[in-house]
């Protein structure tokens, strides 16, 4: 089993089709919706997918064939280490506990793999160390 994050972009023409549902069903994948947005320009869906690698590849190809733009997402936000002052303002804001206080060194650790892409840390960080990578 592998776990990956994808950002899917749907054009207005295909926003109404249950493509994600079909992918889940047909390829037996576990999908966690992290973020969803629909506007005049279409829809965007940020998902975390878990499943067998072969099924995952097939599922993603299915989406691409259906006209969905698919981008694998390794980082939603990243931290400018020079600007981070290790204050910890982000600790109580992040819903995914992606920030951790190391109680030995009192440095704030950023565990990007836990990020669920909510974006809350960006305007929380007073020295502006958290930067948006996508969306």
């Amino acid at each position, binding site marked *: 089993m592998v776990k990956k994050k994808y950002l899917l972009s749907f054009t207005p023409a295909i926003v109404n089709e249950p493509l994600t549902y079909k992918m889940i069903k047909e390829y037996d994948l576990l999908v966690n919706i992290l973020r969803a947005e629909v506007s005049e320009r279409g829809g965007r869906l940020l998902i975390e997918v878990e499943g067998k690698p072969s099924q995952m590849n097939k599922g993603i190809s299915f989406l691409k064939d259906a006209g969905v733009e698919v981008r694998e997402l390794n980082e939603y936000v990243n931290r400018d280490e020079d600007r981070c*002052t290790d*204050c*910890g*303002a982000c600790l*109580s*804001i992040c819903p995914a506990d992606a920030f951790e206080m190391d109680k030995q060194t009192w440095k704030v650790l950023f565990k990007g793999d836990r990020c669920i892409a909510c974006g809350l840390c960006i305007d929380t960080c*007073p020295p*502006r160390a958290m930067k948006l990578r996508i969306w």
Partner: protein
Amino acid sequence: MKRTYEEINEKIKKGDVVVMTAEEVIKVVESQGLESATKEIDVVTTGTFGAMCSSGAFLNFGHAEPPIKMQRVWLNGVPAYTGLAAVDAYIGATELKENGDLDYGGAHVIEELIAGKPVHLRATAYGTDCYPRRSIETYISLKTINQAYLYNPRNAYQNYAVATNSSDTTLFTYMGKLLPNYGNATFSSAGQLSPLLKDPLCRTIGIGTRIFIGGAKGFVAWEGTQYNTTVPTKNGVPLRPGRTLAVIGDMKEMSTEFIRALYFHRYGVSLAVGIGVPIPILDQEVMKFASLSDKDLFAPVLDYSLQSRNRKPLKEVSYAELRSGSIELFGKKVKTSSLSSYYKARVIAEKLKKMIEEGEFLISRPVQPLPEERSFKPLDIRSKEEV
């Protein structure tokens, strides 16, 4: 046991001084007792690094050819106050750029100057017989400017509030983002490392005390604004925001490691300042306070959704609880965030310790103690007759 400033400085000069950080000394007093620790340790160093809005810099630009009496000054588009002499200005850390954005201000100009970057200077004038020039536009840097020093009217607050939010919307405050329904709590003091909490009566800290500020050696210039001694105490230490310091230091010796521009979303700009104060262990009482730990120091939890100066604390919590990552409020676990960097506070206390051990930093006896009694007066709407 008594010890004098002179004795301590003699030891520093000889390289015999025993210095410990306010964190280290806690363990020593726990293990060997107050009396023996007082005998052994000469100086305890403290540190703090957090948002200190009441900060700014006096700048003297030097004279132009032909000279100008600057009436309006902008640095990178941020107005500086010029109601001083011809080429002096004061740039406040929280002053905003004149374009409506909240996220660039005086603090950024100060940080960029300290980083050695070029800063755009524009000035206008009305022109006089001795100062004929009416405008100037140029670049300055810390290298080219005549003088630049930080003068911060209120820094190093003795204790501060813990902020939380009972309302059902997110609040954007100078205490950071406060999530609805007591979703989180933020605090600001460095607790057991914080200068004025470790010498709560300011027995050793006064006007003229040499301190570490922003990476440079500076001084306590005066009592800080909003200095207040009339607050309840616990273990002899104020439970509410109490005393403050006005501090001064040469920007040309500072480093961006200890000065950092901040932007609080939908609130505005502030400046994070790193300050360290050495506490000479003159006697056992000074040591007793200097060795108080996060378990012994408490802060009030305030509901920032109540927009009144009279809000009552919901409860008092220790810095040990705050630093554990959560506190309990109405039976619910509430995650905590520090706004000041304990990591940097530690770096400062360590650095100051090293400077004293290596003979680079002498302890100074205050020229004048800070006020023993002073209350913080509110501003009420009054008529001419009532004042």
